């Protein structure tokens, strides 16, 4: 027998396993599972790397969601590469993909930058473009962008490590910012928003936080209920809702919903 095989990945950092679902089964992230199957050390916070410095020259970060301290960045002689799903300096921050869809952009992309101490600010190593399709939701587009990024990263890693890639500083004047989305950010006023924007907004908010509006099930009701908007399209300049879900209920077609609550009103 030989000594244990060693992956070229020295360590992975991912979110800790969480009890999910009704049975509260401990669920491990895909990165966690991968690390486990490949005998790669797994950490649940980048801070842990300070005590357990990995034998690595380059770090790669995607969708991490937390600020990385300088002490951690400095553990990697050739820095940490950040995979950010927008054409930086446009859409820095936490929700670049929903922002691009909601704004009706036809083109977006991914930037791979070298991390510095400011969020999404470091010099660009490489970028690629990607068309936004009229059917794209944030989940679908994000998956496509990250799948392509994985390929781009493996191709650029060697030339980057050899110092063959010239980095490009971002133009600060063109920088725009996106924020972490909360449930409230999914609210849309169907009566005041142009149909085409609502349709994009529903796709942009999918699946998190999800687009929603407020309805009264009867005109005399004092309370309003949250109605999740799961799908729509625009026909002759008018918004047609396809799939909706009343708070606490199962998703139904808009037609079914109207039949069930024929006196409903948008609040």
């Amino acid at each position, binding site marked *: *027998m*030989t*000594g*244990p*095989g*060693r*992956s*070229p990945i020295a360590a992975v950092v991912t979110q800790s396993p969480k009890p999910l679902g009704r049975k509260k089964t*401990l669920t*491990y992230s895909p990165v966690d599972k991968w690390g*486990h*199957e*490949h*005998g790669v050390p797994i950490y649940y916070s980048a801070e842990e790397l300070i005590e357990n410095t990995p034998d690595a020259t380059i770090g790669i970060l995607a969708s991490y969601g937390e600020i990385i301290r300088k002490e951690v960045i400095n553990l990697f002689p050739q820095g940490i590469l950040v995979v950010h799903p927008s054409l930086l300096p446009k859409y820095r921050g936490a929700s670049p993909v929903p922002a691009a869809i909601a704004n009706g952009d036809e083109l977006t992309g991914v930037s791979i930058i070298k991390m510095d101490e400011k969020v999404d600010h470091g010099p660009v190593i490489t970028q690629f473009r990607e068309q936004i399709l009229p059917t794209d939701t944030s989940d679908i587009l994000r998956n496509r962008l990250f799948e392509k990024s994985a390929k781009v990263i493996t191709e650029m890693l060697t030339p980057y490590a050899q110092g063959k890639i010239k980095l490009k500083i971002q133009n600060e004047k063109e920088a725009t910012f996106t924020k972490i989305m909360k449930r409230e950010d999914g609210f849309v006023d169907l009566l005041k928003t142009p149909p085409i924007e609502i349709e994009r907004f529903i796709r942009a908010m999918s699946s998190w936080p999800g687009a929603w509006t407020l309805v009264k099930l009867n005109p005399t009701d004092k309370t309003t209920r949250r109605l999740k908007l799961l799908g729509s399209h625009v026909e002759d300049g008018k918004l047609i809702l396809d799939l909706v879900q009343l708070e606490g209920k199962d998703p139904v077609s808009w037609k079914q919903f109207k039949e069930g609550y024929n006196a409903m009103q948008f609040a």
Partner: protein
Amino acid sequence: MIRKIVLSNDPILRKKAKPVSKIDKKVKDLIKDLKDTLSVQKNPEGVGLAAPQIGKNLSIFLAKDRDFERVIINPEILKIQKNTTKEKVDKRKKEILEGCLSIPFYYGPLKRAPKVTVKYLDESEKTITETFEGFRAQIILHEIDHLEGVLFIDHIISEGKTLYKVEGDEWEEVELL
């Protein structure tokens, strides 16, 4: 003497090894050869070597893990701690990417029993009963497999695991037919 390690296509690796009846000079020379051969395995690093791997169909193997070194003759498994069936615990038991000197540069994640008790003869023909744990248990089980004509890839296939080929820093999934 350093011997050539046979590769996985050699039929001797598929035979059941014969028990050693007497530790005579021939057997002692064979043990010396096993030691010499294992000591020079640096890429990949060797942690165990069975007699069939140097072309001798006898029930002898070496196990080596840092300061741990054993010559094991005619092993007999007395007790083997089964992998726990509780999925939760099971999943977290670290899988080590196991490899074999007869199948160099191929690795697969194998979850072997965490603990095994073996009765065997040592070089001085003394009967010993010893319990091995963790990575050492894994080495012992891998080498006992060799004496039974079993290779680690057999487990990879039967457990539906992935086999990887490692060339330098390149890792590639291997399709198993």
